[in-house]
């Protein structure tokens, strides 16, 4: 029994929540900048250059612009749903950051079932996209939303199956435990196929090119985001980058050894550097893919999942189980 008004555990969680929000905004800024700069470099142009040194402040300025923009609500839209959709998409994006172990000590809370927690919370995003698509009262939005559901439901399966392979090896749902299990050997070396399947599935789950069908701008104008402007749009935008960050964090935790790397002083905290380096490496790979490949077609997308990824991940799971038993 302590006499303090607020127990330290609660303070810790509050602090972690604030940090998570900082990470969300910081990540959106960094990703926005990286995306533009890399896109620029891939396209033989400099990217943003005007605001700040090398265009560093461009994203901040864009943010101010988006916040200042009028929120246009289509007359025929379902006003309530239209308004809450970006919030429903954005709010759950913060929660997973509370359980991600950036370093042995930098973690909001170690959770026995951290992995399931992340998957459960992220699942709400699909609902948000559906609400957005339906609430806008626009056929393009609706089509985008429907594509999104089919895609997310389909790609969740190979993702979960490959994830199960890792769980079989580590015997824990705790993210910290999974990272700790990779002390000597990263799982990417043990299960390269699982890593590939998982990464492809996460690209699809985060609606990134070449699987960006829910917002395919050349077919559906902007899919479920068609009618959103100003803050509504920027919340979706930030949510998308946060989900990308979470997806890549998961990949790093599951396959790339989390915070493990060459030793650093004060490693319990500073090894977060390795974690972030790996995450941003994956994110840059995602950017690279986006600016290189055309978009796949809807039936190709689903065929790829059901005919290749699901069987492969099933076989992989089986092989893992057999090998472990032996």
């Amino acid at each position, binding site marked *: 029994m302590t006499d303090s008004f607020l127990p330290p555990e609660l303070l810790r969680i509050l602090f972690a929540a604030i940090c998570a929000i900082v990470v969300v905004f910081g990540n959106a800024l960094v990703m926005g900048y990286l995306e533009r700069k890399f*896109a620029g470099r*891939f*396209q*033989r*142009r400099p990217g943003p250059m005007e605001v700040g040194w090398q265009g560093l402040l461009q994203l901040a300025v864009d943010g101010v612009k988006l916040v200042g923009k009028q929120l246009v609500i289509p007359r025929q839209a379902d006003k309530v749903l239209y308004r809450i959709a970006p919030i429903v998409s954005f709010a759950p994006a913060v929660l997973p950051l509370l359980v991600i172990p950036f370093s042995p000590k930098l973690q909001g809370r170690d959770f026995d079932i951290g992995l399931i927690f992340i998957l459960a919370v992220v699942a709400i995003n699909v609902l948000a996209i559906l609400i957005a698509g339906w609430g806008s009262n626009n*056929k*393009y939005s609706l*089509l985008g939303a429907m*594509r999104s559901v089919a895609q997310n439901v389909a790609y969740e399966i190979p993702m979960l199956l490959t994830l199960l392979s890792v769980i079989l090896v580590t015997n824990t749902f705790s993210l910290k435990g999974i990272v700790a299990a990779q002390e000597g050997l990263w799982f990417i070396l043990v299960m390269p196929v699982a890593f590939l399947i998982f990464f492809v599935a996460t690209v699809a789950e985060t609606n990134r*090119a*070449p699987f*960006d069908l829910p917002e*395919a*701008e*050349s*077919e*559906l*104008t902007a899919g479920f985001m068609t009618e959103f402007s100003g803050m509504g749009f920027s919340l979706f935008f930030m949510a998308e980058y946060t989900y990308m960050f979470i997806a890549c964090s998961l990949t790093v935790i599951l396959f790339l050894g989390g915070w493990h790397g060459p030793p650093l002083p004060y490693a319990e905290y500073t090894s977060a550097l390795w974690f972030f380096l790996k995450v941003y490496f994956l994110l840059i790979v995602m950017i690279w893919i*986006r*600016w*290189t*490949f*055309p*978009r*796949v*077609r*809807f*039936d*190709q997308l689903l065929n790829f999942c059901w005919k290749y990824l699901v069987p492969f991940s099933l076989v992989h799971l089986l092989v893992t189980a057999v090998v472990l038993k032996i």
Partner: protein
Amino acid sequence: MSTTPEFREHRYVLNMGPQHPSTHGVLRVILEMEGEYVMDPQPVLGYGHRMHEKMAESRSWPGFLPNAARMDYLASLIYNHGYVGVVERLAGIEATPRAEYIRVITSELNRLQSHLLWLGVLVLDLGAFTPIMYTFEDREKILDILEDVTGSRLTYCYMRVGGVVRDIDDKFIERTREYIKWQRSRMPMYDKLVTGNIIFRKRVEGIGEFTPDLARRYGLTGPVLRGTGVAYDIRRAEPYSVYPDFDFEIPTETGGDCLAAYLVRVREIEQSLRILEQALDRLPEGPFLAKVPKKIKLPAGDATYAVESPRGELVYHLTADGSEVPYRMKIRVPSFSNLSILPEVCRGMLLSDLCACMGSLDLVIPEIDR
């Protein structure tokens, strides 16, 4: 629409355009959809209709040239060429040899920039952003070259009855040669980045297939027709200007699908470069503008002049009544006929494939609407 006997309940209507990223202008396509399948696409034209044919009847012979440039903003010089061609044919005026060479050179440059833009835009329609930046980089070089000699970047008004308005100089020739070298060095990159891309190929292979006979029924011309294996190019079939002097191939493919049209266009880039090289080598000396009366009066009668635009057969059909203005000017534009096949070919297709299909038709909407 009238082609569907009854409106089925589980179908819904999707209005694509007049403002839509894949219609490339103010084209509107009313799509009757079943889920993601397009069951009945019906193009609605006329959003950019300016009645050029009527305007022609109130302008003097040279006065219509700027109008001709504004129909197809990607092939203005070829539209120039066709127009001066039909006036010269009816008036019995011969352009000087140097002028004809300059016309061919500038027309081919124009064709190249049109094909380059199309290449980028098609891939953009399929969801890849980067190639259009590369093609714009190439295209910019052509536009710079043409800007120096014609004075404008897009809606050129460069040709005149009897010749062209300005001569080309050594600098132009040198820059064009440099450009040819540059473009050749870029083609392997496009081969790798676009043609060899597995997703790209899967997106265009077998999409929007049609046969030579279907193409004939709809009056399709240009690369879309050549994609079905018919080597029909006005530059060869009814040679005009000095095209018979040059050695070039008519690329054809047999697939008849989007991929075939794509491959034909990409190979045409190389052929245009070949024509350019030969024309620059053989460019004759002499005046660039024939002696032409200031005010041209055409004899009564009619004449046709067909040229090969980047999109197909462009025909000017002119009826004169002996006065200073055309009595009737009919302009047959290739995209008009090419688009009319859309309802037939795209029935039962996925929405994404419709975008690919429209991209491979290479539509220029102001040309269709005139």
